[in-house]
């Protein structure tokens, strides 16, 4: 099936991600009788063929008892037995089997069962209130059609008996939230909803007892039914986003390979590593805790930790921080800090200190409610008093007041916001952007400044060959043939730049922190830093050069220079120019060296680019912008960006971001292209417009309906018709969003990707 093509990026990523059997054992949970359950996230699964492929591949393994793919949450749940008659099994085979079919598999963080429970409770409440609403409406229609006297009373009593449990069971979400708001001295949308529901039920019951003509049980319950649908959709949307984000590969290691005093090695959870413990870190693994190197030499990729784009070589005595990727050689590290005190913990503390827009922001629905509910309640009270004093019939006055409350009950207002946000989040979900909650969309619509991180956000964080100074054409082929032996990012970039790569050497040796050395007959080829390749210090490659240089030498004589630069993320150029043309202010905040930052800024046409920033300085820069009256969107990925992501009014992170960066961001985008950022802003602005329109519609409806209620002409039938019509109008208006977003976003997609710089090869 052609739709099952897995992108090349994904397959490339397979090579760099290895999950050990110990890590899988930590992630599985026992079911008893020697069975273990393992939940894996498979981000690429998307059709029926994928389900069959993966399930068949897993069931073919002798120790797998059960495998079931969940397409909605893109997961597979796999039950396997730890022991077969042939002895203990290696659970890594499960991952290998999935990888062999061409899909990526990631271990999941601890499953969030609380949210699943909430979803089921909401669905149950929808079911119960739907059942009650349908049956009460059945009885109400009979009353409206002319049932009277004893029959009407009986129908009312049956309605009351159906409504009471439904109200308590399905209404508890609103009552609880309203009570929480009132206790803190605030109001939210749930306060007028709870009040209208309880009051109308009480008055209807009183009417029923006194053989009254009008009872509002149908309005009470169908109101709950409508509002619960909105709330459930909202919950499902957030759930979907959260499960997609949780399904991403964890970048921080779960455990560490502990070296005991007798030299034996044992895999332990990262929390169990103590200060002074000795840890072995293989090439290709991330450093689990902060420590000092006491054995081995290697290069570290710090791009996700500090934003530094060039690998740093480390040897004995060097300090390493958790999260860095060990590239070339095995390292022995002595832990200097516990996992919970490591760099990551400092970042967490900074994040808590940087109280962002999230904490200060009040939801638009709550702001509307704080204006709306006093007006409505005063109106109902005034009608009650006016009818009471002028007419003298206090019972009739009470009925009028309840009619006002029910007619104005914010059914449409309660749906106005969540329905638009659910549609907008669904639209963004299809584009590959996960929205963590509705308030993120509201905040995203308000921004006027965008702050970008450089490494990993504006750029992909992987080097690209941009220039060659060679005496001979065959030098590139020689260099590539050498480079295939290394997993250093520069070597891999060299390999990617050439179509054919076959080794022509007898023996190849890699020196961590230096480069590769190969022997072909009597000749010695070296590929690496200038100092390593030529066996002497080389002036040209000062640390201020924005380009990274690699030298190929033969018997100590330089053959060729290769220059590497970070690759711009596709769409970065259009993103910047589009944002600038729509009068957004753009700043670049990076932890990388200023010379590299300046080069990227020039390529993108940015005026303001700040380099060599610490995480704290990034937060200060965001805070400075906010104090200047700007609302800042922060887009970043690294561990060092996390505090700034938390401090900004709203934040976005790519799915390749560090674990803590993804947690801190309000929106996570799965697309490789950066122009998803202006698209997301566009959708957020459209949805903000639709929310305002919906408010206008809901209020306009009230302006028409309230006089009818105050005049005393509102019967339960009129209320039922008016309420459902206004809700339908609001929902229909919200559904326009996908069309609006599609129409205006189309021209952006058609713009061809502009190359950052013509490739000189």
């Amino acid at each position, binding site marked *: 099936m052609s739709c099952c093509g897995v992108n090349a990026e994904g397959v490339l990523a397979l090579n760099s991600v290895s999950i050990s059997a110990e890590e899988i054992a930590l992630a599985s949970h026992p079911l008893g009788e020697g069975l273990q359950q393992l939940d894996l996230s498979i981000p690429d699964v998307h059709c029926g063929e994928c389900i069959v492929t993966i399930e068949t591949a897993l069931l073919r393994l002798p120790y797998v008892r059960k*495998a079931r793919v969940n397409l909605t949450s893109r997961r597979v749940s796999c039950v396997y037995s730890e022991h077969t008659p042939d002895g203990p099994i290696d659970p890594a085979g499960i991952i290998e089997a999935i990888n062999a079919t061409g899909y990526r598999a990631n271990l999941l963080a601890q499953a969030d069962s609380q949210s699943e429970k909430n979803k089921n409770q909401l669905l149950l409440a929808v079911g119960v209130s739907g059942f009650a609403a349908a049956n009460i409406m059945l009885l109400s229609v009979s009353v409206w059609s002319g049932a009277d006297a004893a*029959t009407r009373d009986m129908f009312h009593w049956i309605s009351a008996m*159906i409504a009471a449990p439904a109200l308590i069971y399905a209404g508890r979400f609103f009552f609880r939230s309203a009570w929480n708001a009132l206790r803190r001295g605030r109001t939210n949308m749930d306060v007028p909803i709870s009040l209208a529901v309880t009051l109308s039920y009480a008055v209807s019951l009183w009417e029923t007892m006194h053989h009254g003509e009008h009872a509002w049980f149908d309005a009470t319950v169908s109101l709950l039914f409508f509002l619960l649908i909105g709330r459930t959709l909202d919950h499902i949307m957030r759930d979907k986003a959260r499960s997609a984000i949780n399904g991403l590969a964890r970048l921080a290691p779960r455990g560490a390979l502990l070296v005991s005093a007798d030299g034996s090695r044992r895999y332990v959870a990262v929390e169990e590593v103590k200060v002074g413990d000795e840890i072995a870190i293989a090439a290709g693994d991330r450093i689990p805790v902060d420590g000092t190197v006491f054995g081995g030499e290697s290069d570290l990729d710090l791009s996700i930790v500090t934003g530094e784009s060039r690998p740093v070589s480390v040897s004995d005595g060097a300090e390493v921080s958790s999260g860095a990727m060990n590239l070339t050689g095995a390292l022995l590290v002595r832990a200097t800090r516990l996992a919970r005190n490591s760099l990551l913990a400092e970042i967490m503390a900074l994040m808590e200190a940087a109280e962002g827009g999230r904490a200060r922001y009040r939801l638009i629905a709550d702001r509307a409610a704080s204006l709306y509910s006093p007006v409505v309640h005063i109106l109902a009270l005034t009608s009650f008093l006016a009818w009471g004093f002028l007419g003298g019939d206090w019972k009739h006055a009470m009925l009028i007041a309840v009619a006002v409350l029910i007619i104005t009950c914010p059914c449409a207002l309660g749906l106005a916001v969540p329905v638009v946000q659910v549609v907008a989040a669904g639209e963004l979900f299809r584009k590959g952007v996960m929205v963590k909650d509705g308030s993120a969309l509201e905040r995203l619509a308000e921004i006027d400044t965008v702050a970008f991180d450089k490494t990993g956000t504006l750029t992909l964080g992987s080097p690209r060959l941009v220039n060659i100074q060679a005496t001979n054409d065959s030098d590139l082929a020689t260099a590539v043939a050498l480079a295939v032996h290394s997993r250093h990012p520069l070597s891999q970039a060299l390999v990617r730049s050439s179509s054919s790569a076959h080794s022509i050497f007898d023996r190849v040796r890699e020196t961590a922190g230096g480069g590769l050395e190969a022997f072909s007959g009597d000749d010695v080829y070296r590929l690496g830093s200038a100092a390593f390749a030529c066996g002497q210090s080389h002036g040209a490659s000062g640390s201020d050069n924005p380009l990274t240089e690699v030298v190929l030498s033969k018997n100590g004589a330089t053959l060729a220079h290769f220059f590497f630069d970070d690759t711009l993320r596709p769409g970065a150029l259009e993103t910047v120019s589009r944002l600038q043309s729509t009068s957004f202010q753009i700043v670049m905040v990076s932890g990388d060296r200023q010379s590299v930052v300046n080069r990227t800024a020039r390529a993108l046409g940015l005026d303001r680019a700040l380099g060599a920033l610490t995480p704290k300085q990034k937060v200060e820069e965001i805070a400075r912008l906010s104090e200047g009256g700007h609302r800042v969107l922060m887009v970043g990925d690294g561990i060092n960006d996390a505090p700034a992501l938390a401090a900004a009014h709203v934040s976005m992170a790519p799915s390749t971001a560090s674990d803590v960066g993804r947690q801190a961001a309000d929106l996570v985008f799965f697309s490789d292209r950066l122009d998803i950022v202006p698209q997301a802003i566009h959708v957020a602005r459209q949805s903000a417009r639709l929310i305002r329109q919906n408010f206008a519609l809901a209020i306009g409806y009230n302006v028409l309906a309230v006089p009818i209620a105050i005049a005393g002409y509102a019967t339960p039938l009129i209320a039922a018709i008016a309420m459902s019509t206004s809700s339908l109008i609001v929902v229909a208006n919200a559904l326009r969003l996908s069309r609006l977003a599609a129409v205006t976003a189309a021209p952006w997609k058609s713009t061809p990707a502009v190359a950052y710089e013509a490739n000189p090869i």
Partner: protein
Amino acid sequence: MNMLIYLIPIALFMGAMGLGAFLWSLRSGQYDDLQGAAWRILAEDDTDQPKP
């Protein structure tokens, strides 16, 4: 009007049956993977059967 004594309980009973069916389908996990269920019906054979 006497027939109401039968009809109303019947109507309520039928409604309750519907509610019961919904609760059962929710509890047995039929809403866990709506997209997957749509595809599975097209698959040739059930791959999710536990091995004997």
